[in-house]
C-alpha cells in the first residue's frame, strides 16, 4: 500500500521536505512508517520520544495500523499560542 507522510517544523527541516510518499506492507503501523523514515534520515531519531502523530488529520498512536492512501503526520512538540 501507499501512504503519504507529512512533516512539520524542525522535523520537516531535518528531512528537507514536508510531504513524502512511501510504500509499506498492508497493515503497517504508524510506528513502522516512522522507523522506515528514521532509517533514511537518522537525524530525526531523537523525536521518537517527544513527537505526536496523526492519521488523516486526527491524533493517533504509533501502534495504529494504516490503510492504503492514509496520510500520516509526525508532529514535533507544539508551540502555538
Amino acid at each position, binding site marked *: 500500500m501507499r501512504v503519504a507522510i507529512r512533516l512539520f517544523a524542525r522535523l520537516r527541516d531535518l528531512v528537507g521536505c514536508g510531504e513524502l510518499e512511501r510504500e509499506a506492507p498492508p497493515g503497517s503501523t504508524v510506528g513502522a512508517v516512522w522507523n522506515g523514515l528514521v532509517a533514511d534520515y537518522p537525524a530525526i531519531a531523537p523525536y521518537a520520544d517527544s513527537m505526536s502523530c496523526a492519521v488523516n488529520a486526527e491524533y493517533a498512536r504509533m501502534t495504529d495500523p494504516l490503510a492504503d492512501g492514509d496520510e500520516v*503526520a509526525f508532529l514535533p512538540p507544539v*508551540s502555538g499560542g
Partner: protein
Amino acid sequence: MSASPTAITADVLDITALVRIVEASGIGAVTTFLGLVRDHNQGRRVLHLVYEAYEPLAERALGRIVDESRVKWPSVTLAIHHRIGRLTIGDASVAIAAASPHRADSFAACRYAIERIKQIVPIWKHEYFEGGDVWIEGATADPDDQAARDAAMRLACA
C-alpha cells in the same frame, strides 16, 4: 476575518470581531485573551516569528477545546482564532473570547482555552532573532493526556 468560532488564519486578528461572534442575549461577561509577539525571548532579541500549522488537525484541536469547555462550563460561548504566517513584534498570534452570563465562568474558560492551545494544537513557532533562528518546541501534543488537562483546569481561574 473569519466569522467562525474557531479558525486558523493568516489574517490579522480582530478582538472586537471575535467578541461579536460570542455575544448573545443573556450574556453579561466577556473575557478575552490576546497573545502578542514579544520583542525578547529567553534573552534573545526577537525580530519576527513565522507560525506554521497542520491546519486540518489544528482546526479540529480548536474545536476539541471548545467542546471540552462546553462540558465544564455549559453557559460559556467560546471563540478561538490562531494566526499563522509571518508575524512581527506586537502582532497578535492568538485571540480568544469567552462569553457567559457571569464573569467567573468567562474568566475560567478563557484561561483554560489558552492553556489547552499551548498543549494540543499543532502549531509551531519559528523564531527569527538577532543572530539566528530556532524552532520553538513546547509540549508533546496528546489530547488524551489527563494530567495535562488537569493542569490546564487548575490554572483556569478556579
